[in-house]
């Protein structure tokens, strides 16, 4: 086997976790959405038209996120809007992580140096990474097409194969372009983390460049700079829509050009350095330990170390909550004027629609954020074992029980910050809309996020003490399955006992119907038992193995 093929095989192997996770999630979304068309949109022409009107009304306030729906009274239009309007977010996020990891991640782990030492030129190495990513993206595109077709068939409908494959190809081309952007961003950053932030901000900006004009009503000439603009030019599943082949080819060409640019930039910089290096200020030699007392305060030190990341989480929670709460009144009005779908009728019947919907959107989103935060923290604990930090901590007179308890405390503090920031921003956003939220319910809903996040963290802690290498995959799968169980359970009207298996369901709807005490008790019990088991399993664990 040639060196290039070996490198390609290793490249595919290295990105397999993200690849498999993305494929499963994209496939599940495509399958579930296509299959749910009759139950969400309706089975008669009247129901479908009414649903389309409602979707159009609902989509207006959130047009900064999703494209304006068209022809959603048909299966093709619905799948085009829901699946191919939402999946770019997931795939772009994966492209950012994969692109930055390909350069900065490999560099920080010393793997890039090994590759280059083996005689593989920089440009060729990057090309192999890009080809590996393209192969992964192509398989995901194919899987999405198969899943959407299968879902449509399950729902008793049919999606035209040609247009379906066409939009999947456009989606793959968009993902490749995002990958190229991430590669170039990684070249200009000095660390993996900075690269992720830079690529995220860059792509976020390009998305807004395309989406803000949708709601603002005027189209700036610079909109063509956004790859999302070229992606949205294709809508072959929508009745009367078409596949814009030049735009799709342009996206793929942009991706290839950006990969080439990243290759040139890589060959023009020092390994381990960045293109934009700030000259360090000449400072005196330091011989003393840092005077900041926080470094000597156990769990606070862990929080302080990740202060910038935590700030990012808090900012995201705040901005999302503010945006969702600000949109609540137009959404309620849209639902009340065109109550068409079963879901919306059920929501409106559950009580004060503002409270019900705010609880659903705001705390549903905060739940997801909290779950992702717990997943990130658990990944950090597993990394401590892999990178030797845990060994150094345990070389001090520190018990393994203390390690687990400090992790739990740090997680709790982070969760509290997220919950407070999200809830406060939601309260503020609702207030700007003239919606007054009951303080008691709001505090209870925010507080209930803590045992929810802790229970997931406890599961992560158990996995870390047992097999650190599977922590992120295991906990990530659990979160994905629980989330999809709740979402699809509502859409497909699955039995209550089945939906109640999801840890997301145990949180309940505290803002609308109050706390669901059995669920809350289960979350608290799982948190306590989980961390107790984690202590026991860490005691039995061979550190670094």
């Amino acid at each position: 086997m040639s060196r290039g093929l070996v490198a390609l095989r290793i490249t595919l192997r290295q990105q397999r976790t993200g690849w498999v996770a993305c494929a499963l999630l994209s496939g599940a979304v495509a399958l579930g959405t296509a299959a749910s068309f009759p139950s969400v949109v309706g089975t008669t022409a009247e129901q479908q038209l009414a649903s389309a009107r409602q979707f159009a009304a609902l989509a207006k306030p959130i047009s900064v996120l999703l494209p304006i729906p068209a022809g959603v009274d048909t299966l093709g239009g619905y799948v085009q809007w829901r699946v191919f309007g939402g999946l770019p977010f997931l795939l772009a996020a994966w492209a950012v992580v994969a692109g930055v990891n390909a350069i900065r991640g490999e560099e920080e782990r010393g793997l890039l140096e090994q590759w280059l030492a083996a005689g593989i030129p920089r440009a060729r190495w990057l090309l192999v990474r890009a080809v590996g990513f393209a192969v992964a993206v192509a398989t995901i595109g194919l899987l999405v097409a198969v899943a959407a077709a299968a879902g449509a068939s399950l729902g008793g409908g049919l999606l035209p194969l040609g247009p379906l494959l066409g939009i999947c190809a456009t989606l793959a081309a968009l993902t490749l372009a995002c990958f190229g952007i991430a590669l170039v961003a990684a070249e200009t950053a000095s660390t993996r983390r900075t690269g992720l932030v830079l690529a995220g901000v860059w792509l976020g900006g390009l998305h807004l460049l395309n989406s803000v004009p949708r709601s603002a009503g005027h189209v700036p000439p610079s909109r063509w700079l956004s790859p999302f603009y070229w992606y949205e030019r294709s809508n072959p599943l929508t009745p009367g829509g078409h596949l814009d082949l030049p735009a799709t080819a342009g996206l793929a060409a942009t991706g290839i050009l950006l990969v080439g640019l990243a290759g040139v930039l890589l060959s023009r910089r020092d390994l381990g350095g960045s293109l934009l290096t700030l000259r360090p200020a000449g400072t005196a030699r330091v011989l003393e330990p840092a005077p900041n007392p926080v470094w000597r305060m156990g769990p606070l030190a862990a929080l302080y170390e990740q202060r910038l990341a935590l700030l990012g989480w808090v900012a995201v929670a705040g901005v999302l909550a503010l945006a969702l709460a600000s949109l609540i009144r137009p959404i309620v009005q849209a639902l009340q004027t065109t109550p068409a779908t079963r879901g919306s009728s059920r929501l409106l019947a559950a009580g004060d629609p503002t409270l019900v919907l705010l609880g659903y959107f705001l705390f549903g989103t905060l739940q997801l954020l909290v779950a992702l935060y717990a997943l990130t923290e658990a990944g950090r604990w597993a990394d401590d074992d892999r990178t030797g930090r845990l060994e150094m901590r345990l070389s001090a007179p520190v018990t393994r029980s203390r390690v687990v308890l400090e992790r739990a405390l740090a997680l709790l503090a982070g969760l509290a910050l997220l919950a407070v920031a999200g809830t406060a921003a939601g309260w503020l956003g609702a207030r700007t809309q003239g919606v007054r939220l009951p303080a008691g319910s709001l505090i209870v809903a925010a507080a209930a996020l803590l045992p929810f996040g802790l229970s997931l963290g406890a599961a992560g802690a158990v996995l870390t003490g047992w097999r650190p290498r599977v922590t992120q995959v295991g906990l990530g799968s659990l979160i994905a399955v629980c989330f999809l169980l709740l979402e699809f359970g509502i859409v497909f009207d699955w039995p209550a006992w089945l939906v109640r298996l999801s840890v997301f369901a145990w949180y309940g709807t505290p803002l609308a119907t109050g706390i669901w005490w059995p669920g809350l008790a289960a979350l608290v019990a799982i948190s306590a038992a989980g961390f107790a088991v984690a202590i026991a399993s860490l005691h039995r664990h061979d550190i670094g193995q």
Partner: protein
Amino acid sequence: MATGTALGAIAAEGLSKDYGGVWGLVNLNLEVQAGEVFGFLGPNGAGKTTTIRLLMGMLRPSRGSARIFGLDCQDQAVAIKRLVGYVPGELPDWGRLRGSEITAYLAGLRGGVDPGQVPDLCERLELDLGRRWREYSRGNKQKLALVLALMHRPELLILDEPTGGLDPLKQQVFYQLVRDARAAGTTVFLSSHVLAEVEHVCDRVGIVRAGRLVTVATLEQLRRLRAYQVQVEFAGRPPTEAVTAADGVEQVTVTGSRLSCLVRGGFAPLLEAIAGRPVVSLTSHEPSLEELFLDHYRDNGVAGPMPPGPAPVRPRPSAPRE
């Protein structure tokens, strides 16, 4: 606290570690006296790091037990770590943290760190704590690991290949630090695969191979074992009989005008034996540690009978370090 010279600093009895079918360490019986500098020698993959990580309570033994200052390495690990300074074989990745932050963090976890000790160590090792871990060279990372191990003036130093990455000048500083620690009564357990390193500082040496302790020797015994492979090219017939009769000269072989032999101790007897003969060339090299010790013990059967236990096997490449 169970410290003092009356007790052995380290005692291992039948200590074994099974990495799921691959034995990293087999039936280790070892005693290190308090105040002693003990070198733990062996080639890569011999079981040095496994032994050290078992002593530190990082790994759970499959069989046997170990005690440090009379305290059990598993059940009383926390009490032990108050007395121990540790340099791991594989340095941790502290990412973006600065040296000063890492020092403050571990000093906070440990407590009781002498405020003057860190600057003193940094001064001696010429280490700048203001840099980020990621920016440190391999040698500077090793220096920081030494600072972290020594900053609380431990009673026992457990050092896993501590001079890796240090330049020769800093290695000398390290040897001096070990001598100073020993003078202050500290016990040192130091693993290495470099013979010259243990010669600099150790009182006794244990040699480990394929997970088994082959022997324990004093430095004096070690020096007696030291040998050089010598090859002499003569202009005429080599003086085989005179060379064979010389003190400390072994394994004499002659091929044409070339004589090869093994020289222990000094070179004087060999030089006397060949004096007056026309020598064209003379080369000498020191055999590697593995060649010297392990071949010696295997060939001469000096090592005691192998302890009962599973057959020794070399660890898998993906498994545990040493």
